[in-house]
């Protein structure tokens, strides 16, 4: 019989945001390395244009995509959930690119590679979020992670940067191995790596007694892999070192985009493929959430370096987001969809917040990217009242004070948790937020209530990033309806 290989149909337009990013990244790396140094801001301009085009295309796709669509032979799943995450990631990346531009200029190391790596990381992230297949997801994860390792180690003048990169690389390798092993186990039980097929196998009435241990092992390994990526306690040990060691704008990039990607994929795998086994994995996620919330907040308080503080605070935020997943796990409950939508809203809000926060830290850190202790913020309010005010708004938002986006995020998650009657978890989460508030207060005390002579220079691009971040924080805080209805339509 004469068989002809027939490739799957490819909907090019549906892939356009990804393709634009690939084009931009390759163009930057290829053309950038073959041409002499571009004029100031040239690389950043290309990167931002690429991101802008991708955001616009994603916007068109959002309007087009009412029903979920399977792409390239079922390997990608395009739905509003994915597009929402995509846009949030790209906006956060765009803001990071702006900060990066000023940072590289200050350090005198403007080059195409950092932007290329940022875009590559984003491409990996996009693949991971769109993935409808665990293998595709793994490919995305690796692309994302490798770019992160390089970005972390990219400051050659500071030894801590290289050290952090190495640490991240080694531990990240372990995590990837866990993830892959989990995929293999699940494939062993279900005979597929496709999310829907896995769901179909587990959702059917067929008794799985024989494969149960293997399945649970697979789920556990998968969870460990994800837990490492989103830095849940006890898989968080890398986070403070990497956040501290990495060049500050890249820390902001990793904190925002890394979180969105890993959580979006985590929620998708667990609520789609493993939905039928929710009763098995919910207790584990519950425990992880509680430990993460408490340990993250408590350890944040005793740090003296702002980047380390924010690392622990990001761990605590991860615990909060996990509360949303616990709520989402109560399938069949009419309020379970709140879990997914509140998780996505939290991610989008947190990403914008954290990029802005790290933009301020970048500015304060000064040449050499070294002044990141709490003391470096002393007297900031006296010399730069606007910058201090912006940072105060961002920190209050992270603490979850009302009329800021951070409160909207926290309220949404708490509401989802209470909706499925997880009262204990909701209370633990809120109390953890109170503990974490102490750390934000410490930074504020340094800025407003301590004497010091901090002087910083902020470039235009950084100012735009901070301004957008603060504006988003306040607008969403006062009028959250638009964001909430967008987030509701993803679940």
């Amino acid at each position, binding site marked *: 019989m004469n068989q002809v290989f027939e490739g799957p149909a490819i909907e090019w337009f549906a892939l356009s945001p990804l393709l634009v990013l690939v084009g931009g990244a390759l163009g930057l790396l290829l053309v950038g390395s073959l041409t002499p140094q571009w004029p100031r801001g040239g690389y950043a301009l290309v990167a931002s244009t690429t991101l802008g085009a991708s955001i616009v295309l994603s916007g068109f796709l959002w309007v087009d995509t009412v029903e979920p669509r399977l792409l390239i032979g079922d390997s990608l799943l395009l739905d509003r959930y994915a597009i929402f995450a995509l846009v949030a990631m790209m906006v956060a990346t765009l803001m990071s690119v702006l900060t990066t531009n000023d940072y590289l200029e200050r350090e005198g190391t403007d080059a195409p590679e950092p932007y290329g790596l940022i875009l590559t990381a984003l491409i990996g992230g996009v693949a991971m979020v769109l993935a409808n297949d665990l293998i595709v997801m793994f490919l995305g994860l690796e692309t994302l992670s490798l770019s992160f390792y390089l970005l972390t180690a990219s400051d050659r003048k500071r030894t801590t940067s290289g050290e952090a990169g190495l640490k991240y690389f080694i531990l990240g390798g372990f995590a990837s191995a866990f993830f892959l092993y989990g995929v293999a186990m699940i494939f062993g039980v279900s005979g597929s790596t496709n999310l829907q097929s896995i769901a179909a196998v587990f959702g059917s009435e067929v008794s799985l007694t024989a494969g149960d241990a293997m399945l649970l092992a697979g789920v556990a390994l998968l969870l460990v892999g994800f837990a490492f990526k989103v830095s849940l306690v006890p898989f968080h040990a890398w986070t403070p070192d990497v956040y501290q060691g990495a060049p500050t704008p890249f820390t902001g990039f990793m904190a925002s985009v890394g979180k969105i990607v890993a959580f979006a994929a985590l929620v998708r795998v667990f609520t789609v493929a493993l939905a039928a086994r929710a009763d098995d994995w919910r207790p584990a996620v519950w425990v992880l959430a509680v430990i993460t919330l408490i340990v993250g907040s408590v350890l944040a308080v005793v740090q003296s370096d702002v980047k380390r503080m924010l690392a622990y605070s990001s761990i605590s935020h991860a615990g909060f987001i996990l509360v949303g997943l616990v709520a989402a796990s109560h399938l069949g409950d009419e*309020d379970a969809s709140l879990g997914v939508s509140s998780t996505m809203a939290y991610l989008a809000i947190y990403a914008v917040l954290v990029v802005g926060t790290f933009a301020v830290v970048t500015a304060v850190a000064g040449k050499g990217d070294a002044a990141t202790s709490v003391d470096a913020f002393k007297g900031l309010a006296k010399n730069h009242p606007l910058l201090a005010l912006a940072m105060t708004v961002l920190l*209050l938002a992270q603490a979850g*004070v*009302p*009329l800021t986006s951070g*409160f909207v995020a926290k*309220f949404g998650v*708490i*509401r989802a948790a*209470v*909706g499925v009657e997880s*009262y204990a978890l*909701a*209370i633990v989460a*809120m*109390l953890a*937020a*109170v503990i974490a*508030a*102490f750390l934000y*207060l410490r930074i504020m*005390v340094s800025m*407003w*209530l301590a004497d010091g002579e901090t002087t910083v220079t902020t470039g235009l691009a950084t100012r735009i990033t901070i301004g957008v971040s603060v504006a988003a924080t306040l607008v969403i805080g006062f*009028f*959250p*309806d638009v964001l*909430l*209805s967008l987030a*509701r339509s993803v679940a």
Partner: protein
Amino acid sequence: MIGATSTAVGFPLLTMLVLVPLVGSALVALIGRSRPEWVKLTAILASVFTAALSVWVLVEFPSGSAGFEFVSRHPWISEWGISWHLGVDGISLFLVVLTGLLFPLVIIGVDPHHNEKPYLAWMLLLEAGVMGSFLSLDLFLFFVFFEIVLVPMYFLIGGWGYDQRVYAATKFFLYTMAGSAFMLVGIVATAFLAKGEVGRLTFDLLEIAESSSFSVASGRWLFVAFMIAFAVKVPLFPLHTWLPDAHTQAPTGGSVILAGVLLKMGTYGMLRFGVFLFPEASVWARPVLYTLAVIGILYGAIAATMQRDLKRLVAYSSVAHLGFIVLGTFALTEQALTGSVVQMVNHGVSTGALFLMVGMIYERRHTRAIAELKGLQAVAPIFAGFFTVIMLSSIGLPGLNGFVGEFLILIGSFATARWWVVAATVGVILAALYLLWAYQRVFHGEPDEANASFPELKLREGLLLSVFVAAIVFAGVYPKPMLERVEPSVKALLEHVEAHSDYRQPVAKGGVNE
């Protein structure tokens, strides 16, 4: 039934009460460094305008009305069933007026000494938050205001306070926020549990209170969640430890506001959200709350007696006074509840004035240690005179405002909480003890060298204090206008409690005025 009737004035009065200070705060913050003289002017205008609006509310408020007046309601976050729902009834009316009047007095009368611009901006933001808390008829909206108040107060204590200010400010912030954490979960749970009976997810206080009856167990849990937040705010023993620190370290203006209106957010919350939303649970929890309140009364009084710092003494006296208010609130009789509401306002006036005078002493002597002050009466008789009147009002001397509330509370609570009242009465005597003893040590005797040059009251200070003294005397001699407006709402609240629980008031012996 407590409905939302509305007195139409064709003008969003209550919304303006919140927005005017908010906008004023933003304006003050935006004034350039080259125009320092506009800063104070803007702040004064904004706060005086707010005061005028609050007086307008008082004048237009129909006496005898039991429902919510001047209601304004607009959808805010429709995704979550949250609306901008403001209203004022007899219970909140005088707190709103007190807030409206206290802020301009503090802004005009108390000098922050440095960085006037941010100080005034935070003050006005604080005013907006406090106003909002007293006016909100939506659980979410209330929480937003209740919580947002922390930020300006934190900065006021931290930025303009005394030596231990950062510690005190942080303690205040975290303590209150921890209490609110429980309330937030409680609020969300309330909305979800009420969803079935109300028909949709809403955070509207009136809709939930009228149409839903929580099961006994869940009602009690929710009540506890709310109460933790309010008990911290009041503060109720044993959650009071933030208060002496915050009061002692806060700048004078901050202390006045803290004692005058901020603490009332807790007692007001207990009435409006505790008793009104969860009548059954309020009845159930009474013994515990009585006991804590009475411990607070006695403990606050004894601790106050022992203080060496005059400001700390006044702070502990607040713990005792607020114990009376809590006792009266949960006594659930008409007289006691009316007394509590009246006492909230009166305590704000007299303790606010006491803090003002302690601030003046500190300005003159740069110490608040009782041991270092002596014989002030001989060198500053007018000063001592004002202090005496204010002190006596705080002690609860008949004829001054403090007596009205305290007496109503004790009389009203006797029927339902007899033995606790007996214990609380000891607190009344102790109040006389610690204040008079402090007065004796500070004002009597021959002034030593350091105190001999203690300056007499200045005209500006005298005018400021005269306002307080006028209020103290008026409310003490002629409390009828106030009682007339408070009573109907209190009656309605008690009817609501009786309709939603097994509780019945002890057979009425007539109203307060008879």
